[in-house]
C-alpha cells in the first residue's frame, strides 16, 4: 500500500463549516465597524461646520436689526425684520441657507432660526432684547433637531 492514510488528506485540506462561519463573522464585524466609523466622523465635521455657520448667520441678523433700530427703519434691510414698538414682541422664524441668505419659498435651507425681538413697555424703559436660536436640519420637526446654538443680544434704545 503506497498511501498509508487515505482519510487524512480529505480532512485537512478543507475548512469545516464552523471555521468558515467564524471567519466570515469576524470579517463582517471588522468591515461593519470600519464602515460605521466613516459617517460618525463625517457627522462630527458637519456639526462643527453648522455651528460656525449658524453663528455667522445669527450675527448677520443681529447686525441687520441693530441698523434698523439705530436708523429707525420700519423694516430691516436684509431680513425684513420689523423692530417692535414699546411693549411689543416681534417673532423671528427664518430658514437660512448655508451662505447666510434667507431661503426662498421652494428651498429647505440649512438652519432654522427662531426667536424674538422684545421692547419693554414705555413705563419701564430698557434695552431692546434679541433672542435667537438656530437649529438644524432646517426641516426637522420640533424635538428632532441634531444641533442648536443660541444668541442673545441687547440694544440700547
Amino acid at each position: 500500500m503506497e498511501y498509508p492514510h487515505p482519510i487524512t488528506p480529505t480532512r485537512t485540506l478543507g475548512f469545516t463549516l464552523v471555521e468558515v462561519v467564524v471567519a466570515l463573522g469576524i470579517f463582517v464585524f471588522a468591515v461593519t465597524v470600519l464602515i460605521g466609523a466613516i459617517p460618525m466622523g463625517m457627522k462630527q465635521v458637519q456639526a462643527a461646520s453648522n455651528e460656525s455657520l449658524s453663528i455667522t448667520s445669527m450675527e448677520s441678523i443681529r447686525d441687520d436689526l441693530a441698523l434698523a433700530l439705530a436708523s429707525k427703519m420700519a423694516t430691516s434691510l436684509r431680513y425684513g425684520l420689523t423692530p417692535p414698538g414699546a411693549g411689543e414682541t416681534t417673532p423671528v422664524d427664518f430658514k437660512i441657507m448655508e451662505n447666510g441668505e434667507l431661503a426662498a419659498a421652494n428651498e429647505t435651507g440649512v438652519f432654522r432660526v427662531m426667536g424674538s425681538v422684545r421692547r419693554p413697555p414705555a413705563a419701564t424703559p430698557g434695552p431692546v432684547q434679541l433672542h435667537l436660536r438656530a437649529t438644524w436640519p432646517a426641516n426637522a420637526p420640533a424635538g428632532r433637531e441634531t444641533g442648536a446654538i443660541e444668541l442673545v443680544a441687547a440694544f440700547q434704545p
Partner: protein
Amino acid sequence: MNPSSHPTRLAGFTLIELIVSMAVLTIMLTMILQITNSTRNAVKLTESKSNNDAIARRAFDRISRDLAQIIIRDDARIEFKSNPGNDQISFLTRTKGFTASGGAGDRDVSLVSYSILYDPTVGEKLLRGTSGKLFAFDSADALKLNASLPFPAISPDNLQLLSNNVIRLEVEYLIQGGSGVTQEITAPATSQNLRGLVITLVTLDDWARRAIKPYRMESIAVNFTDAALGKRTLKTWSLKRDELAKSGIAGLPKDALQSIRCYQRTFLIP
C-alpha cells in the same frame, strides 16, 4: 479507482474555485474602494470648505478692525472705485501710520485701502494699503478734505499682502437717507451718511490655487459679476458658484472649481 491520483487533485484548488474566489474578492474590493473614494471626496470637500471659511474670516476680521476706527465727519472722505471686476475702497482711520520715504515721522491718521491686484506669479490677490496723513494744508501729504480735490494716492510701497486666496472683492454701501437706510452700489463722497459696508468675496483654497494657472484666474473671476442695484450679490454669486462647480470651465480642473466659495459680511460703522 486510482488512489495515487487523489492527493494531487486534493492538494490544490481547481481553476473554477480560483476564478470564483477571485471574482468574489474583486466585487468586494470594488465595493470597498467605492466607499473609500466617496469618503475621501467628502472629506476633501469639507476640508476645502473649512479652509475657505478661515480665509474669508481672516480677511473680514482685518477689514473689521480698520472699519472700527473709521473717521466719521462730513469732510472725511472715502473713495470707491468701481473698476471692471474688482472694487477698491479707501477710507480714513484713526490708525497710526507712517509717510512714505522722505516723510517726517509718524501720523495719527491713516488712509487705509483694500484692493485686488493681478500678480503674474499667483493671479489675483487681496492687498491692504496704508499711509499716514496729516490734517494740515501746507504739508505734502496733508489730507485734502475738500471733496473736489483729487483723492490722496496710495503708493505701491505701502501695500501689504492680505491674502493670496481672495480673487474677487465687491463693496456695497449702506447709506442713511431721508427714509431710512438703503443699500447702494456707489459710494457717497464723504463718510457722514455712511452706516455700513457690505463686502462680498470670492475665495479659493491653496490646493485649487496651485491647480489653476495664474493667468487663468481671471477667467474665473469674470463669472462673478459686479453688484447691481436691488440684486443680492451673494445670492447671484452663490448660484454662479454652484453652476461653475457643476458644469466647469473648459481647460480648468473641475474639483478645483468646486473649492471656490463666496462670502459676505455686513460691517456696521460704529
